[in-house]
């Protein structure tokens, strides 16, 4: 029988069981690294460094995990904080060069496949909308959970998801066959 996240967390807490923690990392590494790749605009090396930092912080602070939230939600919050701190350090808080970055991308050069289209269209969104869409639409978090991860009001999350979705739809429709 497969152990649940809660079982594994209990083993880490009680026995300091690093095997149990490695199982947690194995289970969640793909979604955490995926989220960070979206946030860092596919800078894979930076995203993986931040993902590593995320799991190290999770291990050190696992006693502060409250089981009323999902473990993945808690990890997303740590990952988002790691990203924000890193962005602050690099003085690259997004919003500054969004328009410039958007202008650099030429929609004509993208891969015709839907996946590439979607991921590319997603990367064109401003950070706050992209993050909300990735958390809620792609990773299935509720608006409430996303608000807790991002530490912003619920209404802002809803607005960002709505705007992000609309922009994605418009972009995809514009790229689609006429």
């Amino acid at each position, binding site marked *: 029988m497969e152990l649940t996240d809660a079982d594994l967390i209990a083993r880490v807490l009680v026995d300091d069981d690093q095997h149990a923690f490695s199982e947690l990392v194995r289970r969640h590494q793909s979604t955490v690294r*995926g989220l960070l790749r979206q946030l860092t605009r596919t800078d894979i090396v930076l995203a993986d460094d931040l993902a590593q930092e995320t799991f190290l912080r999770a291990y050190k602070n696992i006693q502060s995990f409250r089981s009323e939230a999902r473990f993945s939600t808690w990890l997303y919050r740590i990952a988002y904080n790691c990203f924000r701190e890193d962005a602050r350090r690099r003085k690259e808080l997004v919003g500054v060069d969004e328009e410039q970055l958007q202008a650099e991308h030429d929609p004509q050069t993208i891969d015709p496949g839907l996946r590439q289209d979607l991921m590319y269209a997603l990367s064109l969104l401003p950070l706050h909308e992209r993050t909300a869409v990735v958390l809620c639409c792609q990773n299935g978090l509720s608006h409430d959970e996303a608000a807790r991860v991002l530490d912003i009001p619920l209404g802002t999350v809803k607005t960002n998801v709505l705007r992000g979705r609309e922009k994605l739809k418009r972009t995809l429709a514009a790229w*689609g066959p*006429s």
Partner: protein
Amino acid sequence: MSEMIDDETLDRQLREAAPYIDDDGFTARVITKLPTAQGEPRWLRGMVLLGVTALGSGIAYLLSGGGRFVREGVIQLSSFPIWLLLVLAFGCGLLVGAFAVIFAIRKTPEVRDLTQLRF
């Protein structure tokens, strides 16, 4: 320009478009960076268990009149037929072995989830 898709379709396509990222040694790198486990609590727990066991055994020995029941048990066992003693020993071995296997599996994620094994 083509028609805009609905929210549900967009969400489904987004979920399907998200690639699964292979572990590719990521977990191993994280584990090597973890702070080493502190030895004190385990050591202390072992000592407490050993102490309590020794104390319990001592009390049982004293209360049973110097271990008289052990001598009586051995005498009773010696009167058993040899095949019964063999079955008893084999059964005990199986029981201990089964517990060992169960604990080994519970402690080892790779063995517990055979789908993760790479050959």
